[in-house]
């Protein structure tokens, strides 16, 4: 049995069953009496489907106790960037909501700030200390690396870029009226740059953009606090890493690529989870040699299982196989799979 940590990270390329396995992990931990929060960052919102949740509840912690006795310690959260921003700006010293057209667009569910907002969200729930364990269902593939890198992006945004503007502006940005702020910018070295930008983007944008930037700057503590998160992730006593793959063509190669990309964040408590494994069926089945088609089918399946064996030797602490569960509802699948964790 794999002992739990404060953060349990489930990553993998698309369609391998991250949400299903993350949910089964969360359920198996909460059955042991631990208070568990399951957060999904994937805009595909598979969790909504698995647990039958209402989309309108996204951004809120939803207790799952009405799903049955085993769920009484389990809560779920569907990431919603707008909700994160709203809470964040209410917490900030300004007290008022950040109502800027640019930020409103960017924090739409598909607006592009998902990864950064997710980091802030997770950091927030860590700080509340309400949960023994947070299980994190991350976005697929490349977007997962974006997710890990987003704290670096935050840092760059507030460190380097603002040096350009703010060493010149001083600390007045929060109080300054738009006009005053602009006129200061106009005197700066950045003036020419913005003039060029204006040609491309229109004048209005530059104004609203400056507002957006200063709005974000006022909330920089939330952003910069989120930077700690990345540091924590690297600590072996703090996190478990689960790389999910499935026994399908190309998924296997993609899994190794993903591991390579995320390796700088991972530590030695990294586990390979093989989902939809047909091994239990394939191993006991010998088609008759007169049915060449079935022999070919079995060989192709077997070759995939073998390819998995290869990566599992590649720096994982251990490998867990989750058999393909045929003919059942998503939640039944999840319940079925919890048994694998208790081995």
């Amino acid at each position: 049995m794999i002992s739990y940590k404060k953060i349990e990270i489930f990553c993998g390329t698309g369609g391998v069953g991250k949400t299903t396995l993350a949910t089964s992990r969360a359920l198996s931990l909460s059955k042991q009496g631990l208070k568990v929060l399951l957060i999904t960052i994937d805009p595909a919102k598979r969790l909504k489907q698995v647990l039958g949740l209402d989309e309108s509840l996204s951004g809120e912690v939803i207790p799952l106790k009405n799903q049955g006795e085993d769920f009484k310690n389990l809560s779920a959260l569907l990431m919603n960037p707008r909700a994160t921003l709203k809470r964040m700006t209410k917490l900030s010293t300004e007290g008022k909501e950040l109502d800027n057209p640019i930020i409103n667009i960017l924090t739409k569910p598909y607006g592009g700030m998902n990864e950064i907002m997710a980091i802030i969200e997770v950091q927030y729930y860590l700080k509340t200390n309400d949960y023994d364990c947070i299980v994190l269902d991350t976005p697929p593939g490349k977007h997962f690396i974006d997710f890990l890198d987003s704290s670096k992006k935050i840092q760059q945004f507030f460190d380097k870029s603002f040096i350009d503007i703010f060493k010149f502006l001083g600390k007045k940005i929060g109080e300054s009226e738009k006009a005053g702020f602009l006129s200061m910018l106009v005197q700066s070295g950045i003036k020419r740059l913005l003039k060029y930008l204006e040609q491309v983007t229109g004048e209005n944008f530059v104004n609203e953009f400056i507002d957006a930037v200063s709005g974000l700057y006022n909330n920089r503590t939330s952003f910069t606090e989120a930077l700690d998160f990345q540091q924590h992730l690297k600590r072996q006593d703090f996190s478990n890493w689960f790389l999910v793959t499935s026994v399908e063509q190309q998924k296997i190669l993609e899994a190794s690529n993903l591991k390579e990309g995320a390796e700088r964040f991972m530590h030695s408590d990294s586990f390979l989870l093989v989902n939809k494994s047909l091994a239990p069926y394939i191993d006991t089945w010998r088609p008759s040699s007169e049915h060449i088609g079935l022999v070919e089918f079995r060989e192709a399946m077997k070759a995939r299982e073998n390819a998995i064996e290869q990566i599992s030797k590649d720096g994982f602490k251990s490998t867990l196989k989750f058999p393909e569960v045929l003919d059942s509802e998503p939640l039944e699948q999840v319940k079925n799979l919890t048994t694998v964790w208790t081995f």
Partner: protein
Amino acid sequence: MKEDTTNSLLQPFTHSSNNGRLIIITGKGGVGKTTLSMALTSSLHKSGKNVLYNCFDHPINKNLINGLDLPYFNLEMGSSAREYIAKKLHSETIAGWIFKTPFFNSLFNMLPGLGHMILLGHIINKLEEDPSLTIVLDSPSSGHVLTMLESPMNFKEMFKTGLIVDDIKRMEDFIYNENLLEIIITSLPTKMAIQEAVDLERGLNERKIDKIQFVINDVLKESPSIKTINKIHYPTFLKKKIEIEDEVFNELKGSISWRYLPHFSHKDASQVIQKASNFILEENNDFL
């Protein structure tokens, strides 16, 4: 198109040559978007079409591309964005200067939608420069394709005026022109995958994109190596999987926008794509 005279409730995947010039292949992760995209590119190429494969913002699988001898092009986000700004400002120096400032650099990093939009713009340019060209876009999975198609509208709302907005209008004309853009949502023969495909269709419809075809990939019961063998010889798990497929097919009975692509058994991915490409060619009299 052939009449449905077989036992199958759905028809095999065909692709009419007068469909879109930009074919976006999407669907949730793991449903075989790359297999379908490459197989379609390969079959179009074999039938003499001027076609290019592109996998948008993903690292390209060179082994497969080379093995299949597929015509393709690559776009890299950073250089595409710089090139675009340079074109707009008529100066590579200024574009280089803008992108060298950490401020704009981090802005681009923070807003992946902006880069996506520029990539989409590049693809549209390519199609406008060469009127005979068709591009097959192996695109990001479900939610992310919505981000990609929504970006132009979002940025139009954001910028309101200026050079980018003129470009965005051009992009929108393209996206909403049914003769140019075609979306294929790929799925698998399971209820859950079908449900996600339907959800994605709704998302696209909400963004006023209606020319959508569905392909159910990897259908075991139509697999050439399996279907000729009497079912009594199938192992139990295979029977079970085929039962699930039958249920799915039954539910979709009569729906013309759903097609299937069989499962092809081979341990080598490029062989699977090759077989799929031959299958598309055989089913498509249009190509020849």
